[in-house]
C-alpha cells in the first residue's frame, strides 16, 4: 500500500500525514521528516482485495453449513435398555447429538447424566455408571445372573470397543442386538408369510401344466386370425 501525504506532525518516530484524498493517517518511519514536506509512505501490509474477502466468506459459510449438516445428521442410533430405556442418536463422528428418554426412569437418569455431545463410548459408560449409582443395575446384571444390559444398534460401523472393555472390566452382562439382523430375520419371515398368501390355487394348477400360460393364450388366437385372412378362392 502506497500513501502520499504532507507531514502534519512528527515526533521523531511517528508522523501524521494528510493525504491528497483528505485522510489523516498515522505512520511509523525511521526516516527524518520535517513538517510540511510531502512524503510517500510504503506500508508493508498488503491489502486483501474485497473480492477475495467476499469469496473467502462465501466459502467459509458454505463450509460451516456443510459441517453443520454433517454434524447434525443422524448417522446411527443406539438404544440402551436396562430398566431406563434411552435412545442415543449419533453423528458420523460418534458424537451423541440427540438423547431421547423412552420411559420415566430414563428421564430420571438423564437429569443427572448429561451425555449430549459426548463420544458414544463415554456417554454409554456414563449411563451405566449412573444406572449403577441409582441402583437400576443391581446384582442380577452381573456375570452368572439372568439379567443383562440390552444394546440395540441401528447403523453402520459403530465402534464400541472402549465401552465393551469397560463392561468386561465391570463384569456386567451385555446383550448387543444389531437391528439389521433383526430386520433381515423379520423380512425373511414376512416374505415366507407373503409367499404363502400370494400363491393362489389357480396358479398352482397352471404350474402343473408344462407349457407357459402366455404361449397358451396367444398362439391359438394368432392362428385363428391367420386362418380368417386367407381368401376362400385360393384354397379352392
Amino acid at each position, binding site marked *: 500500500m502506497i500513501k502520499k501525504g504532507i507531514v502534519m506532525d512528527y515526533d521523531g518516530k511517528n508522523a501524521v500525514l494528510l493525504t491528497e*484524498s483528505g485522510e*489523516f493517517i498515522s505512520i511509523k518511519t525511521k526516516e527524518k521528516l520535517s513538517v*510540511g514536506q510531502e512524503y510517500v509512505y510504503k506500508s508493508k501490509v498488503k491489502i486483501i482485495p474485497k473480492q477475495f474477502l467476499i469469496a473467502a466468506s462465501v466459502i467459509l459459510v458454505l463450509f460451516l453449513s456443510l459441517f453443520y449438516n454433517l454434524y447434525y445428521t443422524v448417522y446411527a442410533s443406539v438404544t440402551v435398555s436396562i430398566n431406563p430405556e434411552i435412545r442415543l442418536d449419533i453423528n458420523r463422528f460418534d458424537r451423541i447429538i440427540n438423547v431421547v428418554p423412552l420411559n420415566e426412569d430414563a428421564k430420571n437418569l438423564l437429569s443427572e447424566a448429561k451425555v449430549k455431545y459426548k463420544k458414544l463410548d463415554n456417554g454409554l459408560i456414563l449411563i451405566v455408571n449412573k444406572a449403577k449409582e441409582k441402583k437400576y443395575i443391581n446384582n442380577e446384571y452381573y456375570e452368572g445372573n439372568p439379567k443383562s444390559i440390552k444394546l440395540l444398534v441401528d447403523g453402520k460401523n459403530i465402534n464400541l470397543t472402549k465401552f465393551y472393555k469397560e463392561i468386561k472390566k465391570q463384569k456386567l452382562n451385555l446383550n448387543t442386538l444389531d437391528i439389521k439382523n433383526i430386520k433381515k430375520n423379520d423380512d425373511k419371515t414376512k416374505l415366507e408369510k407373503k409367499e404363502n398368501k400370494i400363491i393362489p390355487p389357480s396358479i398352482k394348477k397352471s404350474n402343473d401344466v408344462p407349457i407357459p400360460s402366455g404361449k397358451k393364450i396367444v398362439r391359438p388366437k394368432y392362428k385363428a386370425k391367420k386362418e380368417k385372412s386367407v381368401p376362400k378362392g385360393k384354397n379352392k
Partner: protein
Amino acid sequence: MDIISNRDEFIIENKPFIYKTASNICKRNLQWENDDELSIALIAFNKAIDTYNNEKGNFYSYAKMLIKNSLIDYFRNNSSKYTLYFIDEQIIDIQNKNSLNQFEIDIENKIRAQEIYDFSRRLKEFGIEFKDLIKSSPSHKDTRNELLNVAIKISMNEDIVNLLYKSKQLPIKKICLLTSKKEKFIESWRRYLISLIIILSDDSFKYIKSYLNIKAGD
C-alpha cells in the same frame, strides 16, 4: 515577474498549462468558448502573475495552487450544481516533480509548514490535535466525500461559520437543517468536519487546500 515584459504573450504561451490544470480538476474536457471554469482558471493565472515573488517557490506550482483554489471556491459557490469528491491519485506527476528543483521544493515546504503550524493552533482552539484526527477521519471514501460536501455547504454559510468560530463548537442542529443530514452523523465526524471547514473557509490555508485532490462531478 519582471523578466516577462509582455503579459498577454506569457498567458497565451501558458494556455495549455491553464487548460490542463483546469480540466484535471474538472475531470472533463473543457472549451475556451463555453466553460466558465477556464475563465476562472485564466483569472487565477493572471492573479498568480500579479502576486508571485521569489519567496513563493516555483511559479507554476504557485499558479497551479491558485487555479485549484479558485476553482474549488467556484464549485463551492455553485455547490448545488456540483458534487465534490476526493481522488486518490495512483500515478505520481513525474513531469511536475522533475520541473521543481530542490530549492523550490524547500520553499514550498516552508510555506506549507507555516500554514500547518497556524492550522494546528487553530485546531487547538477547538480542542483538536492532529492525533485526534487520525481516529476521527473516515477511512471510507464515500463517507469522506459526503463530509466534504457537507463542509463545502457549511463554509458557504457565513452565519454558521461565524457561530463556529465564536462558540468553538459545531452548531449541529443548524447544520442538520442546512444539509439534511442526521445529527448522529454530524456528531460522530465532528472533529474531521471542523478541520475541513477551517481549511475550506479560511484563505490563509491555501497551500493545504490546494494539496487536497478535490475534483468536481455533476
